[in-house]
């Protein structure tokens, strides 16, 4: 129920209880949240947290793989005396970012969302990695997920 009870900052005008109760009743949500919405959100969370855990494993295995590749390379160089190649840098990108990079050019921008939208419109054969939000379907929600990743402020400052 609405209340005029204590708040951390305490100060400020209070409302009569009947008013705050009626305000609360008027605006009390009439929206029932279906269980499938809960499932979708929690599944999205599960995928993301699992992706983070998997990316740690991927990083470990990729590091082992890179070390092995570097060793093989060194051995082949000793035999062939060719110009050395740089060791392969293991990918550290989380699985989610890899999925968002729909066009595979190494960065996530609006063209990835655009590419996914065109695939969906053209009814191209669905690819598992296009299910960016992990809800089991490939649709506008995935396009929006990629687009929002593209415009996220966490990308850094103007270069």
């Amino acid at each position, binding site marked *: 129920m*609405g209340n005029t009870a204590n*708040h951390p900052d305490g100060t400020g005008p209070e409302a009569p209880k009947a008013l705050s109760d009626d*305000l609360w009743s008027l605006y009390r949500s009439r*929206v029932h*949240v279906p269980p499938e919405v809960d499932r979708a959100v929690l599944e999205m*969370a599960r995928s993301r947290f699992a992706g983070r855990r998997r990316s740690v494993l991927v990083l470990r295995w990729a590091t082992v793989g890179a070390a092995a590749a570097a060793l093989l390379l060194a051995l082949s160089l000793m035999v062939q005396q060719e110009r050395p190649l740089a060791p392969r840098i293991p990918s550290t990108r989380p699985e989610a970012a890899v999925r968002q990079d729909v066009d595979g050019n190494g960065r996530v921008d609006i063209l990835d969302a655009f590419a996914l939208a065109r695939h969906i419109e053209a009814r191209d054969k669905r690819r598992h990695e296009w299910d960016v939000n992990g809800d089991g379907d490939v649709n506008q929600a995935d396009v929006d997920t990629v687009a*929002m990743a593209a415009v996220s402020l966490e990308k850094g400052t103007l270069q």
Partner: protein
Amino acid sequence: MAQLDPRSDEALVEAANRGDEGAFEALYRRHRDWVVRLAFRFTGSEADALDVLQDTFAYLLRKFPGLRLTSRLTTFLYPVVKHLAIRAARKRRQHASGDQALSEAQAPDAPSQPREELAAVLRVLPEAQREVLLMRFVDDMGLRQIAEALDVPLGTVKSRLHNALKALRKDERTRAYFLE
């Protein structure tokens, strides 16, 4: 029903930063109804409110790891929900019938007469005053929380709230609330 998690929002965010999926679920369950209620207030549409609910928590999810919460989660999420909801409502209105002014959704139909009159008075309150009034008495947010969520000075919040209550007191349809 799962037992309620006793940890604070800050503790749950810290745990989620460390990869604790259960902590995120606890945050979702704790704040789900508030988010959907707020979204419905702005959109007036159940479908849009549910979309905004999912978008809001998708947004929150992307913040981990690395989110540092210095207030309650509702303060952090309020502007996110508001703007996602306004965008959803705008899209719906543009599809429905060209340009329309954006504003918080009107109060739903009130079942009883006093509430009908309260709803009518709220409809004509300036949006900024109505918003603060509802954040205070429906969302149960403190004044400092409201100031932080809206990014306005505390004095502005107090002034808007004062003026909103004054308007309700002056209006003959809602004056009775203030009579002893």
